[in-house]
């Protein structure tokens, strides 16, 4: 029974949430393209259970009972990250927000019949740095 519990715990942590930020240079324009994303799980659509850790000094990739899947926090990280690229002037910011209120066991296409119990939220932000 112990290995099963350990596998389930590992699976839960791997699916818990993850903040990521990366950049790449567009040779044709000389601009940098920055992309950041974060996602997390919520109880009743508002109480954060676990999400990616958006703290720049984070040790763990996820954080419990704190909401880091907010546009403010992700935008702040993108702006801080962009300061060291080119002139640091950020342009063309574009959000891609995703909300799922009908929790579905991934891969089985079988939703929990009651919505807003366990919900998922993901925010992605991309932009250019001149």
């Amino acid at each position, binding site marked *: 029974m112990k290995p099963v519990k350990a596998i389930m715990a590992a*699976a839960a942590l*791997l699916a818990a949430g993850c903040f990521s930020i*990366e950049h790449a240079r*567009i*040779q*044709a*324009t000389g601009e940098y393209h920055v*992309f950041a994303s974060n996602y997390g799980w919520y109880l009743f659509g508002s109480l954060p259970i676990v999400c990616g850790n958006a703290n720049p000094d984070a040790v763990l990739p996820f954080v419990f009972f704190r909401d880091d899947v907010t546009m403010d926090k992700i935008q702040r990280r993108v702006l801080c990250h962009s300061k060291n690229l080119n002139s640091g002037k950020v342009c063309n910011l574009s959000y*891609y927000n995703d909300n799922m209120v009908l929790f579905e*066991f991934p891969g089985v296409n079988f939703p929990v019949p009651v919505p807003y119990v366990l919900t998922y939220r993901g925010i992605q932000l991309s932009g250019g740095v001149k």
Partner: protein
Amino acid sequence: MKNIILLAAAVLAVSGCASVDISREGGHTVAVVENSGWYLFNAIPIASGDPGNPNGRTCRLFSSTVNLESNIAMLDRAICETGAVSCIDTVSYTTDEKVFAILLRRLSYHTTAELVMEQETAEQKEEETQPCSSPLM
């Protein structure tokens, strides 16, 4: 042996895919770059698209090319190949699909941008140098 060949063919058929699609409708040239790959337990790459050969039937096994850098490299190549001089409105986002929680995951990076042709930039410069017309009275 036959089963192994079939299995290998199936793996290659559903493996990672890199593509660059370009639309030239209405005087706007828009490029859509996509690269996807399969992961085991959310971390171990099984196969991903080959950014060196987008729209081809090749993939990279046991390596992950699904990242922003690969997409930007494909976008840069599309700019060169289409004769564009630069790009504007570059937007990226990711999508993922999971099979049994974390057992199998398909991650895709999408990047879109409008390509700016040399002719367009010349027209823009002309517009900029022309004096503004007087406002209507």
